[in-house]
């Protein structure tokens, strides 16, 4: 049955697609973008099927080449993987539709490298999520990172520097992760996650495990841009081509968080990282500082993409906070916020790209009258922004509700205050955009409607609709996440 091979098909299709992009590009450059859309659409469909299968029939385990783990590489899919796979693949698919016009303007004539890298990045991220092998995880992490460096660098003069900075940080992060994995391997002799989780309890007392955990946590914290290791992110998101910013904001940091959850809660046991070594409580404090710092820094920005980037730093803090509090409710909220933030932030970055596409404006104080000029695009922006603030009935409200509730459940009042205070700060930096976009222009000044092209507008509107729908029916993703969380946490 072909459906038995879905996990590997997800990856194979990607690499196959990336390999053929230059060949297709040689025939006609314009075909590259539809090709990328086609490939990512297949990946999205496979991810949906995987989620369906996992929900219907329980966890999947796929042995590469028929080699039994722990000798061979295993692709293990449980609800968490499948959930994140759907998000990542979905964002990659929709952004690829959007990217044709946007990249066509911002990076003209480079379709072949762009879309080859695009598919590599998408596949690399899916690989990180689906694999059940820590070394394989590292390999995919490098594949996707290299693709990301190159994609960011395509953005123009300033982006080269941003990309270089990111590469330095990214390489440090990768070295840390590799070293950590190396220690784990030396201690246990295995790289398979399931096998590690059985063998590791035997060496819980040993300091070398602490070193390994420290290395992995720091490495992944750089990848996820956890404050104060976020310094690569604002430049990279600001100067990358808009479509790439949208893609990275929606997926890349989330994949890092996924890896963190996976390593901390299934490879190493929750009780160890919560009680024996207070890794999680350290992360929550950093996350809380990051939530506030990110919001405050966002208020100080006037470039719309840079503002959104700092806002990401803050939102990533929410997710890590939820994960770090490590009770059922907060964890559910944290994982739900992976979904929320992907939907909101991708949509918002797409809108900023659409504004740049039509007008070239990046400064938020020059957006006067944009509400009349691009009514649908800006409408989507309002939905995304309200969700960021946490106004019901959007998905941002649902995750914020769970995060605050989880913090209360944990008895950590400080974090409740941080979460709620940050929504107000978020309101501050989004509301000045609303003021500029919608008010202060009277009908005497004639503004012509000049909407973004449909291939950009449709994905934007889909994201706005999803933010809304996922908010109204938030109990559906929550029920799915809960199954996983209850299975993992004691």
């Amino acid at each position, binding site marked *: 049955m072909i459906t038995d091979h879905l996990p590997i098909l997800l990856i194979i299709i990607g690499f196959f697609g990336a390999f053929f992009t230059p060949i297709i590009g040689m025939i006609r450059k314009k075909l590259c973008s539809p090709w990328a859309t086609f490939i990512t659409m297949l990946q999205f469909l496979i991810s949906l099927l995987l989620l369906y299968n996992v929900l219907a029939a329980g966890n999947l385990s796929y042995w590469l080449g028929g080699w039994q783990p722990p000798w061979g590489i295993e692709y293990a899919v449980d609800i968490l993987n499948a959930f994140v796979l759907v998000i990542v693949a979905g964002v990659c698919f929709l952004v690829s539709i959007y990217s044709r016009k946007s990249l066509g303007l911002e990076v003209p004539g480079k379709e072949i490298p762009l879309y080859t890298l695009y598919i590599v990045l998408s596949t690399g991220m899916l690989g990180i999520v689906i694999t059940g092998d820590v070394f394989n995880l590292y390999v995919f992490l490098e594949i996707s990172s290299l693709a990301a460096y190159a994609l960011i660098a395509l953005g123009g003069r300033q982006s080269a520097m941003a990309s270089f900075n990111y590469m330095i940080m990214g390489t440090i992060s990768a070295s840390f992760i590799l070293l950590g994995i190396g220690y784990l391997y030396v201690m246990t002799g295995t790289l398979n996650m399931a096998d590690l989780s059985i063998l590791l309890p035997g060496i819980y007392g040993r300091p070398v495990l602490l070193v390994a955990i420290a290395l992995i946590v720091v490495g992944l914290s750089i990848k996820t841009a956890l404050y104060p290791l976020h310094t690569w992110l604002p430049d990279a998101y600001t100067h990358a081509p808009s479509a790439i910013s949208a893609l990275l904001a929606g997926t890349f940091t989330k994949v890092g968080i996924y890896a963190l959850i996976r390593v901390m809660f299934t490879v190493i046991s929750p009780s160890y990282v919560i009680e024996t070594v207070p890794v999680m409580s350290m992360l929550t404090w950093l996350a809380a500082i990051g939530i506030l710092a990110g919001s405050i820094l966002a208020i100080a920005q006037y470039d719309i993409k840079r503002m959104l980037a700092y806002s990401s730093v803050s939102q990533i803090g929410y997710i890590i906070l939820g994960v770090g509090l490590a009770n059922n409710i907060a964890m559910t909220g944290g994982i739900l916020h992976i979904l929320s933030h992907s939907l909101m932030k991708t949509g918002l970055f797409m809108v900023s790209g659409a504004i740049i596409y039509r007008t070239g404006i990046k400064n938020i104080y020059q957006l006067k009258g944009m509400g009349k000029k691009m009514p649908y695009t800006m409408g989507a922006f309002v939905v995304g922004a309200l969700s960021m603030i946490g106004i019901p009935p959007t998905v941002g409200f649902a995750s914020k509700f769970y995060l605050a509730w989880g913090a209360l459940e944990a008895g950590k009042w400080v974090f409740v205050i941080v979460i709620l205070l940050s929504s*107000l700060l978020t*309101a501050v930096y989004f*509301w000045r955009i609303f*003021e500029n976009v919608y008010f202060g222009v009277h009908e005497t000044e004639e503004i012509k409607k000049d909407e973004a092209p449909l291939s950009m507008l449709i994905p934007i509107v889909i994201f706005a609709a999803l933010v809304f729908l996922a908010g109204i*029916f*938030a109990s559906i993703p929550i*029920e799915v996440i809960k199954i996983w969380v209850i299975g993992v946490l004691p």
Partner: protein
Amino acid sequence: METITSFSPGLAVLVSLLGALMILISGRRPNIREGFSLLAGITKFGIVASMIPVVMSGKLIELRLWDVLPGLPIMFRVDAFGLLFGLIASFLWIFTTLYSIGYMRTLKEHAQTRFFFCFAIALSSAIGIAFSANLFTLFIFFEILTISTYPLVVHIETPEAMKAGRKYLLYLLTSGVFLLFSIIAVYHYTGTTDFAFGGIIAGNGIPANMVILLFVTFMIGSAKAAFMPFHSWLPSAMIAPTPVSALLHAVAVVKAGVFVATRIILYIFGIDVMSETGLALAMAYVVAFTIIVASLFALTQDNLKKRLAYSTISQLSYIILGVAMLTPAGITGGMMHILNHAFMKITLFFCAGAFIVASGKEKISEMNGIAKQMPFTMIAFTVGALGMAGTPITAGFISKWYLLIASVEISQIPLLLVLLASTLLNVAYFFPIIINAFFKKPERELSYKEAPLFMLVPLLLTALISIIIGIMPDEPLALVSIAVQNLIGGT
């Protein structure tokens, strides 16, 4: 208590959302657009009114929609108290729509589609708040109400308006955050957010300190009720067009705040918890302070709308005072005052708007002799002002009577004095306006006439109704008494 399931509450919310959509679509043709506004208003009132017989027969109407979060559904439950608020808001929307048409067109206001669109959304959320069965549903509509009224407050888009808008948001979003916190905490401790006649706080082993903290955060959360020290957004919001001040900032938004405060006091904390912890009495004194101080502030305002705003702050506190006294008479007086104040204050605001449209005058000091030019408007204004002071045969007398009885019942003489002093203050800040308008000579010849009929007719009708309620209060009193019986019977 018997409950029946019906789609009516959902439809009542939905109809003005659909109306809003139609308003947006027909934005280029003003007559059709306003047609939809009116149609939505009348349909909405019809649906709400159709629930009267069921509720009067002592039943509840329920509608459980889907779960937004697991265990936290969007759910409506119409009881007598909710129905009262729903009736008021939807009934007055019809008048306000007519009045708005006159006001906005005469002044040739810009962005009228946005105005009517946001108005319809705001009304939907007001009805949603009225019919919410739990705090969670209520919070959703509460936040939508905040967001949808913001464009109305900053309507004229001048720098001052934007500044006022920021203040509006600062207060209301912050209070929303407090409310959210309180709701999560209640859910955390009790596992439910449903309104219940005896409250849900009791018997869950919540530490006493926590109960008090929760009450404080809840009350900050209902800052839409504009009691001190969370009142100062309301005078700032007076920069909005007058129909907005009239319906939203005298009825829908502020009454939503009062409504929520009442729901929290009586249906979440419950009469027993409120009286045992002494929170009720503390709250009564906070709002008593507001009644007096806001009246004093009102004395100093020369801008008519701002004076009315301070008067609103003072009058809203009457309602909470009544509820916080926790006796049947007090609760009856408080709930009745939601109705009475709505009709009286909307009349006064309508008059203030008529002055602006007809004469361009906003300041009280410029209104000498205005009664000669605008006799009907000024008569309506007088009716409203008499009602505010609690003169017999106006609606205001009924509620004040009950409040006075309650303050004697619980033998809190200071509260009695506050109510009496407030009456005097009302006289002090309204009667000079009336006397000057009727008897003083204007500085120069006045050449304007009454406001257009679209505005004049609604304001005369609301004035008339506030007298009718004063003479024949039986119907609304019957509704309120069902609400009171439920509460007292439930404890």
